[in-house]
């Protein structure tokens, strides 16, 4: 059953890392944008949303050209000892990029829905900016951010095109479930593919149900 467990565990590892990174990046960027008053804001937003609409193969190509050994940042990464092409970390980068707009969009909408008077009240009562963010803005936006993170997790679980291009198809090392399914279908291994398809579907549904069931309960307690 190694042919199933190894890709499954790898896929979960990649998806969890991508979700965690996106929670930090997506929330930080969304908060910054929601407080930024400039015409450039919508341009920045459009660029940040590109991964949602560009074909994953285009994103994979960009990543390869930027992060590959001979890429624009290749030498720089090499000096830092970071290898992304054909590594699971590369798969994390691909999944993070592809799922980023889902967290970013949800978080921005959530931050913009926070009543500015509540934040002002916090400041009047002597809270510092960091405290205003962590004790008022973030808890109020948590529901929307969680929703975005769930979608991002599911998207990262299923990421295929960009992952295949940058992380390749190395069984046991970078072969995620979706890549393993693709390889099995190409090789005519319908049974293997069917089992992995079922496992992927069930995992995604369970993850969504579990998180959907956990998150509101937790948020209900922390809501003001």
């Amino acid at each position, binding site marked *: 059953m190694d042919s199933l467990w190894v890709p499954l565990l790898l896929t979960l590892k990649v998806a969890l890392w991508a979700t965690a990174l996106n929670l930090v990046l997506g929330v930080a960027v969304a908060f910054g944008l929601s407080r930024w008053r400039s015409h450039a804001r919508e341009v920045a937003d459009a660029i940040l949303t590109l991964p949602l609409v560009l074909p994953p193969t285009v994103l994979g190509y960009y990543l390869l050209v930027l992060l590959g050994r*001979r890429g624009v940042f290749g030498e720089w990464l090499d000096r830092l000892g970071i290898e992304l092409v*054909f590594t699971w970390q590369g798969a994390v980068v691909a999944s993070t990029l592809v799922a980023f707009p889902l967290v970013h969009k949800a978080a921005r909408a959530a931050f913009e829905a926070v009543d500015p008077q509540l934040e002002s009240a916090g400041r009047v009562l002597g809270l510092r900016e960091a405290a205003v963010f962590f004790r008022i803005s973030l808890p109020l936006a948590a529901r929307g951010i969680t929703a975005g993170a769930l979608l991002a997790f599911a998207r990262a679980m299923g990421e295929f095109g960009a992952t295949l291009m940058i992380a*390749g198809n190395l*069984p046991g090392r970078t072969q995620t479930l979706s890549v393993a399914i693709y390889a099995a279908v190409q*090789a005519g291994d319908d049974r293997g593919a069917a089992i992995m398809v079922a496992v992927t579907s069930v995992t995604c549904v369970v993850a969504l149900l579990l998180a959907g069931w956990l998150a509101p309960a937790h948020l209900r307690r922390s809501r003001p």
Partner: protein
Amino acid sequence: MRLRPFVALLLLTGASAASAADLVVSAASSLTDAFQAVGKAYEAKHPGTHVVLNFAASDVLLRQIASGAPADVFASADQTAMDKAVAAKAIDPATRKDFASNRLVLVVPQDSKAAIGSPADLKADSVKRVAYGDPASVPVGRYTKAALEQQGLWDAVSAKGVLAQNVRQSLDYVARGEVDAGFVFATDAAIMKDKVKVAATVPTPKPITYPIAVVAGSKQPADAAAFEAFVQSAEGRKILSGFGFEAP
């Protein structure tokens, strides 16, 4: 009336859809450049026919055809894929002919400083990654596996293996310098002379031959047979040899 430009665009794109005189040729990835030239030459001789080329790993093409894809001609890079097509009753076995042969080569990036002169050198610790086609679905991968098994190198090399979806992907990995070496056909290495260099020609247990056949469900078997005959004609052979393919 904001829909009008949209509808116009729909009609415009619809007009270019496939027509009855399309001859769909599914050919192995390694045949990409050669068959594009063959297709053009065939169209020049048969003005009513439009040759539509579909390139992928041979087993992928076979899967498409066996699932009912509307192909007329199937050209694969090894006998295994064609044997599978016969077993799946996807092609007409009476039309099966070998039309070309090729050689397996070990390539390294053009600026590579690694001392790689034979497959045995891939065992060195300095060699981290080697690209080759997935043996489960790509002929060049099957040839590579058989050749390395014969030399007792398969276990050592496959531990460093990066599986490609087709031969051109292996070539691309080497050309970009993402892998230290890769196995491709001699004809593939020849089209990227500026980016890859041939380190060794690798002997294979079985000769590398390309079979071609008319697809069993073809709606225009006569046209398909004419294309197959053209590939094997003196003119077709000349085009193929121009890309480095040898006679079978």
